[in-house]
């Protein structure tokens, strides 16, 4: 193992300033083809199609996936979540985080290369760039050349394409928060509300800047996952690596020459792997933190190896152990641990979701006084019921009380709550004085839908009266 070349930043002498600022070098990504690229195109396409089309799906005559912020209601297909369900979102995010950990331990930075929106859009933009300006060499020449009509035209086409992608992405994104059918109609009619305008503008600009201009800078300097993903790696994690033992000494050669005799390895030093790299590293220097494991260098090198008639896999997905000649252990405590935790959480989450009662009941005892005496001599307690119907259809609910004999509900026990409505319903409970043996009792209030007994919630509260006269 050679040491990775490091930049020496030791202060030279006293009184000499050191500049730690790394100048950005523009990366021209070369076009290539290959297995991993196809894989990424498929995965990216699936995600893009989901992103662009899910907001158009309908469910019961409304948008299937809609995060209605003004009404604080979040529709996901057949379910409607309220802010009270925030715990579910927390758990979902925790599960997703663990999935990321699990995948990272197993296969390294799979997320970055194949699923991260930053990267999916970056590849989309690189494609647009190539479409407008040609491949790597042409782009480099174009950037070096003086301004001319041709250059202006190419650049204009590129930025127009970029902006088009950015704006459509922004509209698709905002369409999850503001019904997309009306939104698209509004966009077409130039009659957007100020908020929609602002968010579409903001996300379009952010997409354009991120995927067009910032690109790998986000991964290298801004992304938190990139910072901590390496702690999840172990020696059996899949990494993309250059097989040094096979490749060195690198050097140019004629095709079909007996290079082994010349003391050369399989690497022909064509720099193809460097030219296709979207983060601009040389994989032959070993694993680096910039590497997003997109597999571009694997595809590029395999292509060259094939042409040279050598065996593929000089740069390949492998593990540290394999490179050192050991065997890779797939089942290791860390991976198994993550898997068990993930499975347990997933099962619990599904169970919770399946058994979720789309009803919310809060009981607030009236403040100000513990009880009052009604004119008929009964002891009366007042409660405010807050009944939230989280379903998509109206329901009639029956309110019943238990836990104290002789307790009467004065108001109408059947109450109608419209879909997605939060109803305030004051109720009065009365008990005759001679029934009172203690100053307070635990009681249970049950709210149950008339048409579906599985939608039922029981809440405990107290009934308070005067201390009985002995």
């Amino acid at each position, binding site marked *: 193992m050679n040491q990775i070349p490091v930049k020496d930043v030791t202060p030279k002498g*006293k*009184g*000499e*300033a050191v500049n730690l600022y790394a100048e950005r070098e523009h990366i021209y990504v070369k076009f290539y083809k290959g297995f991993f690229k196809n894989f990424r195109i498929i995965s990216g396409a699936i995600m893009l199609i989901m992103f662009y089309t899910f907001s158009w799906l309908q469910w019961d005559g409304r948008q299937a996936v809609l995060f209605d912020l003004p009404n604080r209601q979040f529709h996901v297909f057949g379910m409607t979540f309220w802010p009270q369900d925030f715990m579910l979102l927390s758990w979902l995010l925790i599960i997703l985080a663990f999935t990321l950990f699990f995948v990272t331990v197993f296969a390294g930075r799979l997320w970055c290369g194949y699923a991260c929106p930053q990267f999916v859009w970056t590849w989309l933009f690189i494609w647009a760039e190539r479409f407008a300006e040609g491949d790597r060499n042409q782009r480099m020449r174009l950037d070096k050349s003086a301004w001319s009509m041709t250059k202006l035209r190419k650049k204009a086409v590129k930025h127009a394409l970029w902006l088009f992608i950015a704006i459509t992405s922004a509209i698709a994104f905002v369409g999850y928060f503001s019904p997309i059918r009306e939104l698209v109609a509004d966009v077409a009619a130039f009659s957007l509300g100020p908020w929609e305008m602002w968010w579409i503008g903001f996300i379009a600009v952010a997409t354009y800047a991120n995927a067009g201009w910032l690109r790998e800078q986000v991964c290298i300097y801004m992304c938190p996952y990139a910072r901590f993903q390496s702690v999840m790696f172990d020696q059996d994690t899949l990494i993309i690596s250059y097989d040094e033992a096979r490749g060195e000494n690198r050097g140019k050669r004629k095709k079909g020459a007996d290079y082994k005799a010349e003391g050369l390895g399989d690497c022909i030093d064509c720099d193809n792997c460097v030219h296709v790299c979207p983060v601009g590293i040389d994989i032959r220097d070993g694993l680096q933190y910039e590497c997003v494991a997109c597999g571009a260098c694997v595809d590029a090198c395999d292509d060259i190896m094939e042409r040279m008639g050598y065996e593929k896999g000089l740069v390949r997905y492998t593990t540290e152990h394999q490179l050192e000649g050991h065997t890779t252990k797939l089942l290791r405590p860390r991976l198994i641990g993550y898997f068990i935790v993930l499975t347990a959480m997933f099962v619990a989450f599904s169970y919770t979701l399946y058994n979720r009662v789309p009803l919310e009941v809060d009981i*607030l005892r*009236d*403040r*100000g*006084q513990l009880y*009052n005496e*009604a*004119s*008929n*001599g009964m002891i*009366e307690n*007042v*409660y*405010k019921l807050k009944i939230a119907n989280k379903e998509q259809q109206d329901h009639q609910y029956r309110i019943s009380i238990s836990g104290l004999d002789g307790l009467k509900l004065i*108001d109408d026990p059947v109450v109608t709550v419209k879909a997605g409505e939060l109803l*305030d319903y*004051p*109720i*009065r409970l009365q008990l005759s004085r001679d029934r009172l043996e203690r100053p307070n009792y635990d009681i249970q209030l049950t709210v149950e839908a008339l048409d579906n007994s599985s939608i039922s919630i029981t809440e405990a509260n107290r009934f308070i009266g005067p201390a009985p006269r002995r």
Partner: protein
Amino acid sequence: MSAFWSAWVTVITLAVILGCTWLLLQTRKSENFKEETDQTLGHEFDGIAEYDNPLPKWWFQMFMATVIFGLIYLVLYPGLGNFKGLLGWTSTGQWEEEMAHAEEVYKPVFGKYAALSVEELQKPENAAGLKMGQRMFANNCSLCHGTAGTGAFGFPNLADSDWLYGGAPETIKQTIVNGRQGAMPAWGAVLGEEGVRDVTSYVLTLSGLESDAEAAARGKTQFQALCTACHGVDGKGMQALGAPNLTDDVWLYGNSFEKVAHTIRAGRNGVMPAHKDLLSDDKIQLITAYVYSLSNK
């Protein structure tokens, strides 16, 4: 603010801003904006010395931007003592503006129902209007009268059929708009302690509660002399004055001997605040309808 304090605030505010600016300009290296220098500050700890570098340019510019922002702000908005600012902004003004805007937005919503009579609003098709009334009742009235309008000690029950001033829609509206003063005078000095107890005994008999018959007989005479002016000869009260009916089971201040005696001895002073300045007429109309609905189901 007096002129002195106004000047005090102005001078200090401006002096601090100018002082910061002066400090910024002083600490900036004047030697043609050099980014870096080989000069150290002259102190050294464990061989570590600090360069005498100026503030980075972007940082300096950001500071200057805040100074400029501050000065512009002080010209436009109140901040320098009694100076009102060129925009004439006040928090009260903003509040009024927002209230006016809310009024504009919600007036049609309330107005649609507030145009209807209280009896009309009881109909099922106007349930939404009544629901608005309920919500406003919860925000404005339930603190005293309870969530269900059942009242509390000293606060009348609105959900029963007994009314101090009458339960006609117009009367209820009057009560909310102008408020009420339920003044029961204190008779302790007139009657003396003995008299108070006698009258109390008599009053309890009016609603069929147990009391000392002898004392009640004595109290009756005094009751006829002093109390009938408001509570009527038969003790059934007078809605024009808000004098309660003493013959029913409804007791605003309790019906134990001691509580009634206290009422007679020291008097009571119930206040329903006027809401004409707090709530718009439309809102009061809807609240009236809701209160009316409590006892007319």
